[in-house]
C-alpha cells in the first residue's frame, strides 16, 4: 500500500529509501526530500511542547496530486517518511500509525544489531518494508 518508505537520519540524509519499482525512483527521492521541510517545521513547532508528551507521529506532511506523504519522527530525530497513493482511501490514520510503529520497531531491531554502524545505510530492512508495500492494496 505504501509506494515509498524512507528512513532519514538525524542529519537529514537517507539511511534507507525504497519505492515501488514500477515508478520513477528519483521522483520519490524528491518527494521525500522536500517533505523534510515540513518535518523540520513540525519538529520545531513541537519543540515548544513538553518533551515527554511529544507525539512521534507527525501525520500528513503534505498531499500531492497522486500521493500523500506521512511522517514520523523518533526521539533521536530519525525520521520515517511514507508515501501512499492518495487514491487509496481505505487507509486510515490509525493504520498509518501502526505501520509507522512497525517500522520503528524494525528500525530498533536494526540498531540493536551489533554489526550495524549507526549512520550507515541500512541494508537489512527489505523484508519488512516489502511486506508493508505489498500488503492490502
Amino acid at each position, binding site marked *: 500500500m505504501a509506494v515509498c518508505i524512507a528512513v532519514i537520519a538525524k542529519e537529514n540524509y537517507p539511511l534507507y529509501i525504497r519505492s515501488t519499482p514500477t515508478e520513477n525512483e528519483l521522483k520519490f527521492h524528491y518527494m521525500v526530500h522536500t517533505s523534510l*521541510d515540513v518535518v523540520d517545521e513540525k519538529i520545531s513547532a513541537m519543540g515548544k511542547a513538553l518533551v515527554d508528551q511529544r507525539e512521534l507521529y507527525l501525520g500528513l506532511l503534505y498531499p500531492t496530486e497522486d500521493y500523500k506523504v506521512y511522517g514520523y519522527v523518533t526521539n533521536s530525530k530519525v525520521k520515517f517518511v511514507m508515501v501512499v497513493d492518495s487514491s487509496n482511501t481505505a487507509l486510515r490514520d490509525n493504520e498509518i500509525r501502526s505501520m509507522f510503529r512497525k517500522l520503528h520497531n524494525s528500525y530498533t531491531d536494526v540498531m540493536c544489531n551489533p554489526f550495524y554502524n549507526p549512520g550507515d545505510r541500512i541494508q537489512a530492512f527489505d523484508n519488512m518494508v516489502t511486506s508493508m508495500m505489498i500488503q492490502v492494496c
Partner: protein
Amino acid sequence: MSVPDYMQCAEDHQTLLVVVQPVGIVSEENFFRIYKRICSVSQISVRDSQRVLYIRYRHHYPPENNEWGDFQTHRKVVGLITITDCFSAKDWPQTFEKFHVQKEIYGSTLYDSRLFVFGLQGEIVEQPRTDVAFYPNYEDCQTVEKRIEDFIESLFIVLESKRLDRATDKSGDKIPLLCVPFEKKDFVGLDTDSRHYKKRCQGRMRKHVGDLCLQAGMLQDSLVHYHMSVELLRSVNDFLWLGAALEGLCSASVIYHYPGGTGGKSGARRFQGSTLPAEAANRHRPGALTTNGINPDTSTEIGRAKNCLSPEDIIDKYKEAISYYSKYKNAGVIELEACIKAVRVLAIQKRSMEASEFLQNAVYINLRQLSEEEKIQRYSILSELYELIGFHRKSAFFKRVAAMQCVAPSIAEPGWRACYKLLLETLPGYSLSLDPKDFSRGTHRGWAAVQMRLLHELVYASRRMGNPALSVRHLSFLLQTMLDFLSDQEKKDVAQSLENYTSKCPGTMEPIALPGGLTLPPVPFTKLPIVRHVKLLNLPASLRPHKMKSLLGQNVSTKSPFIYSPIIAHNRGEERNKKIDFQWVQGDVCEVQLMVYNPMPFELRVENMGLLTSGVEFESLPAALSLPAESGLYPVTLVGVPQTTGTITVNGYHTTVFGVFSDCLLDNLPGIKTSGSTVEVIPALPRLQISTSLPRSAHSLQPSSGDEISTNVSVQLYNGESQQLIIKLENIGMEPLEKLEVTSKVLTTKDGISVSGFPLSSPFRQVVRPRVEGKPVNPPESNKAGDYSHVKTLEAVLNFKYSGGPGHTEGYYRNLSLGLHVEVEPSVFFTRVSTLPATSTRQCHLLLDVFNSTEHELTVSTRSSEALILHAGECQRMAIQVDKFNFESFPESPGEKGQFANPKQLEEERREARGLEIHSKLGICWRIPSLKRSGEASVEGLLNQLVLEHLQLAPLQWDVLVDGQPCDREAVAACQVGDPVRLEVRLTNRSPRSVGPFALTVVPFQDHQNGVHNYDLHDTVSFVGSSTFYLDAVQPSGQSACLGALLFLYTGDFFLHIRFHEDSTSKELPPSWFCLPSVHVCALEAQA
C-alpha cells in the same frame, strides 16, 4: 484576466495603479531613466490631510486585467504617463495623436494622464498645458518629480470625488451592479427589482467603496465598508464578490498590523515622519464620512480597531476568500494572487505550515495554458515563496523545475545560462557545496540521489552553455564526492564523458570564478586512486649515506656536554613525529611508496603521477600507472631527484586521471597512514656500481651485524677448488671518488672450512682481485661415509666504503657490500695416512687412502707421481715418496714475537705452518675431466704426531762419503780391488743442543739376496786403520767428520753397515736421529 502578478502583496490594495509607457521611439535606456525617477515618487502625503497615497507604477499592464478594475480597484489603471521623443514641431501633432491613442487603451478607467515630451523646443513649448510637460533633453528635467506629485494630487482629487460620489449615492437611487467581465452575460435578463438583486448591488458597491477608501488612505472607513459588504454579500451568496470583500478586509487588516509591508523587497515602505498609517487611521478625521448615505452610522462606531481582523482571523478570512474564489474557474488569477498574498502574510507571522498549505493550493490552481516564460516565472516565484517560509528544499525543488523549464524542448532558444544560474541557486537547498573539502571529512552526509541529479544537470547545462571548463569541474566534483553512490555503470559513464570533455578542455587546479561571484574550487581526485599509505623509502643499502663516526661524535658534543640528556630527547620529540631518521642524497633518485587502490570497476589509468614537495628543489619524475579494476592495495613508487640540500617535505602527489589534473595534499586525505613526510637531503656523494665476473645470485646473505648486502655472488665449488673473482667498481655518479676503503669479513666458517686469500690489500686500486679458496679440512672423526656428501657453505662479505664530493666534506660516506656465498661440495678425502720409510734416510713414503666422494671420475696426482684414476665413490691407496721436512728451519711466526700468545696457540700456528709446508711440497691435485674442474687436496688435518715425526728430517744429519762421493740410497759406489777406498762420515748438527761424542763401527757384509747376510768377510775386506770411528761432540749447527779407509780384496757387491756403539749414543736422543744411510760398494777387477 489571465496574467497573474506574482509579486502582489496585501498592501498593493491601497495603491493607485499608474502605467508609464513610451510612445514612439524612445530608447530603453532613456525610458527607464525617467521611469526610475517616476517610481521614486511612490507615496504622497496629501495636502490638508494626514492621508497618504501610495502609487504602484507599471511599465507594462495587460488591458484585460484592467477590466477587473471594478472588482478590485487597485487593478484599475487610473493614471497614464507617456514618455516620448519629439525633436521638431512638425512631428508634434503626430506625437500628440499617439498619446491619445495610448490613452484609449485604458481610457475607461483613467482618472488623468500626462505626456512627457523630450527634445522639443519652440513655441509649442511656450503654451502652458497641464497634461503635457516639455523637456529639452533627458538630462535637463529636474521638475519630473514635481510634475508627478502634481499629477498624483490630481489623481487624488478624482479618487476622492469618486469615493464621495459612490458613498453619497442616495439609497433610493438605483445602485448600478458592478461586475467582473465574465459575469456580464450571466446577468442579462435578471430581475433588477428583486430584493436579492438590490442587496447584491449594495454589497458590491460597498466593497467598491471600501476599496476606494483604502486607496484614499482611509483604512478604518474601508474596514467598516468591507464588514458591511461581507454581511450583505453573504446573505445573497454572491461568493465571488464575498471573497473580494473578505480579501479587502484582510488587506486592510494586514496594512494595519504590518506597517512594514509583506511584499519583501518591494514592500520596504517609507513612512513620512513618524506617522504610521495605523496611527493615522486611528485619528479622528472630522467630516470624513458625514455624507455617507449608505450607512450614516459608520462614523458613530466606537473602537474602530475592533473592525480590524486579528492576525489569526486574517488567515481564516483569506482561506474563506480563496475557497470562494475557487468556485469560479475564471477567477483563477485572483485566487492565485490571494494565495500569494496570504503566504506573504503568513511568512511574516512565521506560520510556515499554513503558508505551505496556501502555496500547495496555489500550485494546483490551473490557469490557462501558460507560456514557457510564464511557467518559469511561476516556478521561480513559488521557489521564492517557499524560501520565504523557510522551506529550502521545496524552494530548491521549484527552482530546479524553473531551471528545467528554461531549457524545455518546446523552447526554440533554450536559456542554458539562465538554467545554469537557477541550478546554482538550488545548491543550498540540496545542502550541496561545490567545495570538495566539505566532503573529505568522514562519510558523505547528504541526499546523494538528488545531489547527484543536480550535479548531472549542472554538468549538462554548463556544457550546453559552451563552458567546457565548468562541465569538467562539475563532473570531477561529481566523481570525487559521489563515488560511493555511483553504480558501476554510472561510474563508467561518468568517467567516459569526463574523458570526452577533457579531451577538449583538460581539468585544472585553478579555481573557476563564476559571474555570480561564486568560485568553484578545484577538485583534486583523491579517490582516484585512493591512497592508503604513504611511506618515504630509504635509499637502497648500497647508496645509503653514513655519517663518519668521528664527526658524529663531534656533532653530539657541540650540542650538549652530556652524553645523554633527557632534555634533548624531549626537544626532539616533536620533530620526530614527522621527521624520518634517514637521509636522502642530493642528485640521487629517491622513492616514496604509496599503497593505492582503484575503486573503479574498470582499469584506471593514472598518468603523470608525481610528488609534490617543498623545502628543497626537487625534480619529480612522474610515473604512469594502470591499476586493475577494483584492485586491492597496490604499491606504487613515485620517484624524484632532490637538486639541492636541506629538509624536504613531501606534501602530496599530483595525478592526471581522465584528463583532470589533481594536486592531492596529504593533509586533506582522510584515513591516510603516513610515517612522516619530512626527510633530510645531504650533499651529493659519488655512486659506485659493482660488477663481478661471476653472475649475481638471488641468494642474499643476512649478516647478524645488520648490514645490508647490495650485491651477492654465489658460487658452487668442490672442496679444494679455486675460483677467481674479478670485482669491477665503476663510479656512475657525478661526484669524484676521493676515498675508498675495502674490508672483508668472513661470516661463517662452520664445518671446518678455512679460507685463504682474505683479507685483501691494495685499497686504492680500482680493480681488486681477491682470491677465495675453500680448502678441505678433514676432521679426524669424520671418517664415516655419510659425512662425505655433506655440502658446506661459506659466507663472506666484502665492504667498500667510499666517499667524495661535497658529501665527503660533510662527513658522509657510502658503503657497498658484496656478499659471497660459496657452497663447497666434497671432492676427495684421505681416509687414512701412514708412512713407510724409504730407502734414503732423507725420504720416506707417504701412504694415502684417497676416497672420491664426487659422482664423477676423478684423477689425483701429485707433484712427483703419476695420476691416479678414481671412480665415483672409489677408495684407493696411493704412495708418495717425499723428502723429509726440516720443520725447525721455519721462520718464527711474527705473532710469536709481537705478543704473548699462549703456548697452545703457538703450537697451533706451528702445526698449521707445517701443514702448509707439507701441502705445498706434496702438491696433491685432483681433476674431474668430465667437468673440466680441478683443485687441490690437503692432508693437513690428517697428519697425526706419529706421521709427522716420520716425515720430519732428523736434526742430526749424517752423510757418508765414499771416495769423496756422497753415498745414499741405491747409488752404488764403484771401486777397484786392491785400492783403498776412503770412507768419510760427516755429522751436521741442526738440533739446538750439542751432541756427541759418538763412536761408530763400520760393519761390511754381503747380501746374498736370499735373506742371508754374510758378515764373515775378514778375508775379503780389510780396514785401513781402525774399523771404529770417533766423532767429537758437535755444537749446535756445527759440523764434524771422521775418516777411515777400506780395502776390498776381491771383487763383489758389498754393503757397509755403520753402527753406533751402544755406550756412545746418548739415551735421551730419539733413535730416529741416528739413522745413517747404508753404503753399497761394488768392488771391481783392477784394471790392467
